[in-house]
């Protein structure tokens, strides 16, 4: 790990407020953790004796499991509270839930919540580190970090690289976090999809907006697909899945517009045959499963860094 750099954040709420150096530092830290994943004994003692509470108040499998595995690898004990089984369903407020978790002497909270801003709110309620595992359409910082980690592995430095993000940008926390992260690392970001899902106002975040798939994909170094959340969009944002696929679905022919070495990414879960042809999802260009593996290393890095900053700050306060 880079010893000359001092990481001071005890919370990870979003990418927007991180400096480019901080983004890079997390990714560099994750490189070290990924190396440990090849060992026969994968556990590290970094968080031994700590309790990480996974407060998942919105359905999630991949992210929740990835955080659990990451915490376990760091030797933490994991306490998982899910929305359907929590007292939130009985009307308990997030404040009360959080304070109960803190009273149980958890050392960190990882939160997934449908309300944007809830991790920030939570961080103001409790005196332990809070990590955002996705808040509504706001941010999903660890997803963006693992995406950037994967891109760095596959295509090297992101400085000057062209990355297209394709699909439901409007409702996507993954898109927002990735725009911030990719821009901080020097990449050029093009958002592409139907105008109802990719409004021009996204240009205020420093991304280019396009509704022309061919121009957006031409010479791109990577394309990030986003799941079309047809279950929540009814008929308001595009006429049908068929029309979406015919205009914006990724298939073999359209993949040829990319650079030859370009990679295809997807945060999952996939709608095979909608946003991507099924065989393309399983092709050599797809790095979808690499993303899953890298998600563990990145989350190990985030948990480790936030816990370390918290411990250091509390020790300083005592002194």
């Amino acid at each position, binding site marked *: 790990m880079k010893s000359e750099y001092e990481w001071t954040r005890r919370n990870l709420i979003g990418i*927007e407020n991180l400096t480019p150096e901080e983004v890079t530092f997390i990714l560099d830290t994750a490189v070290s953790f990924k190396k440990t994943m090849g060992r026969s004994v994968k556990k590290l003692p970094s968080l031994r004796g700590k309790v990480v509470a996974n407060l998942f108040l919105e359905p999630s499998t991949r992210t929740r499991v990835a955080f659990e595995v990451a915490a376990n690898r760091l030797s933490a004990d994991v306490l998982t509270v899910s929305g359907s089984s929590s007292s939130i369903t009985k009307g308990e*407020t*997030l*404040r009360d839930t959080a304070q109960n978790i803190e009273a149980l002497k958890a050392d960190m909270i990882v939160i997934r*919540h*449908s*309300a*944007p*801003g*809830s991790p*920030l*709110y939570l961080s103001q309620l409790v005196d332990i580190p809070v990590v955002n595992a996705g*808040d*509504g*359409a*706001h*941010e999903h910082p660890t997803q963006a970090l693992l995406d950037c980690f994967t891109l760095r592995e596959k295509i090297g430095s992101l400085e000057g690289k062209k990355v297209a993000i394709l699909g439901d940008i409007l409702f996507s*926390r993954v898109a*927002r976090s990735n725009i911030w992260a990719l821009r901080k690392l020097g990449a050029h970001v093009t958002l592409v999809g139907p105008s109802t899902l990719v*409004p021009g*106002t*996204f240009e*205020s*975040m420093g991304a280019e907006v396009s509704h022309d798939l061919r121009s957006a994909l031409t010479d791109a170094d990577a394309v990030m697909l986003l799941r079309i959340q047809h279950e929540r969009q009814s008929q308001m944002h595009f006429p049908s899945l068929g029309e979406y696929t015919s205009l914006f679905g990724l298939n073999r022919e359209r993949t040829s517009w990319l650079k030859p070495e370009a990679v295809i990414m997807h945060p999952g879960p996939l709608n095979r045959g909608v946003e991507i042809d099924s065989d393309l999802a399983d092709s050599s260009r797809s790095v979808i499963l690499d993303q899953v593996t890298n998600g563990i290393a990145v989350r190990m890095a985030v948990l480790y860094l936030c816990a370390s900053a918290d411990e250091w700050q509390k020790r300083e306060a005592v002194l």
Partner: protein
Amino acid sequence: MSVEPLIIEGGRIVDPSSNRDEVGDLFLRDGVVSTPFARDKARVIDAKGKVVSPGLVDIHVHFREPGQTHKEDVGSGTRAAAAGGFTTVVCMPNTSPPCDNPATIRYINNAIAENAVVKVHTTGCLTKGMEGDSLAPIGSLKKAGVVAVTDDGRCVQNNALMRQVATYSEMFDLPVMDHCQDTSLTEGSVMHEGDWSLRLGLKGWPAAAEDIIVSRNIILSELTRAHIHMQHVSSAGSVSLLRRAKQRGVAVSGEASPHHISLTDKYLGGYDPVFKMNPPLRSEDHRLALIEGLRDGTLDCIATDHAPHRNYEKDVELDSAPFGITGLETSLPVCLETLHRSSGFSLSEVIDLMTRKPAGLLDLQAGTLSEGADADVTIFDSEKEWTPTIDGFQSRSDNSPWLGQTLRGQVETTIVQGRIVYEDGKIL
């Protein structure tokens, strides 16, 4: 009812209704503004260095009685009004149950008679249950004493019904006040649609949702000749539409709130629910358009939309928090700062927007220091700095973005019909 004669001595008397702005004495006897009388027969209030204005008038407050008196009731709401310098307020009908029948109005009138420390007028609903489906008994509500009709908090979406509301209300000479919101564009929305909502991942509330209904109301006012008043106007588009309609002589009017002229959507950057309002705080260009609307008379008055909620109700995720802020106790200093000190309005112009003009919109006998008028007076120090605190509020709620902020301009004395109801921070 006999009250002690009062002489308010040496203050700067600012009464836009009589074009008066001069240092002098004001005489109050038998509950009305009087001709001068002997000093030895009265209590003398030293107002040197202070402003003496007509009692402030607010045509848009929520007192939550009946139904949600844990947030506010007529007693606490009028105490907040008095502390803010208001002597006349008009309360909205979205209580629980809503004021869609004379019995509920009579219930509130009883509460007013028993507990109010300032004058309170009631409004009735436009539609039964505020459901937007059928006409409320507007004639009976008029008989019960309402001064206007509104479904505030909701907006009639059915244009044909809104036309009938306007036509029917006009028969009773009752202004229609409308909360302008096309709900098909705002479902799930929590803040202004713009760069900030995009960045924060919050569902945006386009200004067009207001503009569409303001347009509709202008067209229906022209068609029916009814007076339709647009509540808490928040968008530049609405101001522009109203400006053109007024130039054609259409009987429409509009109000702006202290928070919409002073704050913008950037304050939601920290997801603090105290800034969550309906309509939402908009961007700077909209805010400036509202101020220009007040300057050129397109917008007729200031109204607070005083909307109390208890602190635990706002202490939740932004998505779940209720809309609205309290406003009565901070309105005057916020308007002095935003309009007088920052935008070049004269003191008299600001007071006009908070006295004569709102009173005139609903034909209320208030907002003037003319001889023989009710002795409703506000004395304030326009330069005094103070910091609102939870303990200092008279309102039962404290959902104010100005808590802990330094404000300039403080009410010292509020007089209603010749009786001092608020003085030196205390309700008397």
